[in-house]
């Protein structure tokens, strides 16, 4: 069996390694990471504050523990600068050249950074890994007023936690509602109302254009001309798949590294998984798609050919003040919303009249299991 080299020790890389080890005792697995190889959960980063979890507590298993559990070689603090797909080697920053047989890119995504003017722009935080979270935790300590760029999934989860911590929270997003286009109107309105009821101030159709340092913190100027003084600015405007290494190898890249339903790139010895991968045209930066894809890829890498078919995979938005579950529809159709005092339940029906998506807000999230059954069985 060819040896397997995995770039990245996030949820995707480590989950894949686990799935391979479940299928094969003998598979040779090497993981390469630019960080210290600690296993942690990315979804927990945006809900850790309200759960009282420190950056230290978020460290689930240290690298040494992962080496033992996986019986894998793990190269930490190791940066790969180039892939030579013809020679099947990796060029490392330290000058070494490592051969590979099967290579998996699980290098994740980078936070999108909006162009911001002013000397405070360099101090805007993004939280996309454990080191970022530790920095956020430190900077947050003395901060009372927080501005958030982005009212998407991560922005809303942070807004939820920050308002619950007693701080003041202002959220900016050019979109007209939270979670962008994921939610139909009444559902989005309910989420907005619940967070506003707790004190969050939303500025839709607006964005921060300038950030200047002041003795007390930062002065923001928005596109609409509003000025605001805050202590901390957190940016959560989206993720862009990391396709740099893939491009260096001559692989097809689009929004992500292009892979087919066996997770293979345009090179037969190279695969991609997780936030960096565009699987049959979709980039799904969530946990459930990674779990499904990792199982299929592990099979393919250990001699059993499998094709990935995603089941319906609802996305959970863990805003405790107003939980949301959304199963985005795959195509055209119509939303039908039921609004009550305790929640909003929205069904999406396709042009043939069949349920092909749903969105649940507040108490209506209890309908998830029934709607999933209908989606799967119907």
């Amino acid at each position, binding site marked *: 069996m060819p040896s397997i080299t995995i770039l990245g020790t996030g*949820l995707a890389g480590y*989950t894949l390694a*686990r799935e391979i080890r*479940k299928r094969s005792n003998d598979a040779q697995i090497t993981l390469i990471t630019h960080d210290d190889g600690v296993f942690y*959960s990315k*979804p*927990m980063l945006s*809900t850790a504050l309200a*759960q009282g979890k420190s950056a230290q507590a978020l460290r*689930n298993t240290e690298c040494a523990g992962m080496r033992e559990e996986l019986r894998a070689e793990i190269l930490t603090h190791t940066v790969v600068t180039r892939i030579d797909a013809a020679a099947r080697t990796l060029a490392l920053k330290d000058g070494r050249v490592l051969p590979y047989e099967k290579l998996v890119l699980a290098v994740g995504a980078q936070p999108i950074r909006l162009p911001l003017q002013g000397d405070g722009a360099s101090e805007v935080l993004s939280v996309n890994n454990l080191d970022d979270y530790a920095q956020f935790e430190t900077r947050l300590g003395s901060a009372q007023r927080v501005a958030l760029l982005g009212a998407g999934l991560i922005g809303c989860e942070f807004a939820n936690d920050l308002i619950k911590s007693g701080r003041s929270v202002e959220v900016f997003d050019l979109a007209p509602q939270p979670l962008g286009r994921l939610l139909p109107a009444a559902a989005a309105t309910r989420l907005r109302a619940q967070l506003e009821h707790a004190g969050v101030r939303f500025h839709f159709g607006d964005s921060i254009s300038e950030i200047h340092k002041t003795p007390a913190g930062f002065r923001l100027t928005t596109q609409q001309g509003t000025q605001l003084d805050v202590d901390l600015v957190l940016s959560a405007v989206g993720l862009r798949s990391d396709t740099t290494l893939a491009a260096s190898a001559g692989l097809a890249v689009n929004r992500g590294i292009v892979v087919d339903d066996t997770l293979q790139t345009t090179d037969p010895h190279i695969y991609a998984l997780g936030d960096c991968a565009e699987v049959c045209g979709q980039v799904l930066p*969530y*946990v*459930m798609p990674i*779990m*499904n894809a990792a199982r299929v890829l592990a099979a393919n890498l250990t001699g059993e050919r499998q094709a990935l078919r995603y089941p319906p*995979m609802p996305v*959970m938005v*863990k805003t405790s003040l107003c939980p949301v579950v959304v199963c985005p529809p795959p195509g055209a159709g119509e939303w039908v919303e039921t609004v009550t005092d305790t929640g909003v339940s929205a069904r999406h029906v396709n042009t043939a009249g069949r349920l092909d998506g749903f969105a649940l807000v507040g108490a209506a999230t209890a309908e*998830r*299991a*029934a709607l999933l059954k209908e989606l799967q069985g119907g």
Partner: protein
Amino acid sequence: MKKWQCIVCGFIYDEAVGIPEDGIAAGTRWEDIPADWACPDCGVARADFEMVALAA
């Protein structure tokens, strides 16, 4: 009856409540949940992750 939390996504399993819609009756202890169960919120397999007992 204990509460358990998925260490990947934070989903909380309450033994007193179970997950009736998934066929897990109220009162089912964590140890008795089927081996092929996966976290309903994030899909992590039961075998792969810890549920951490939460203080009552």
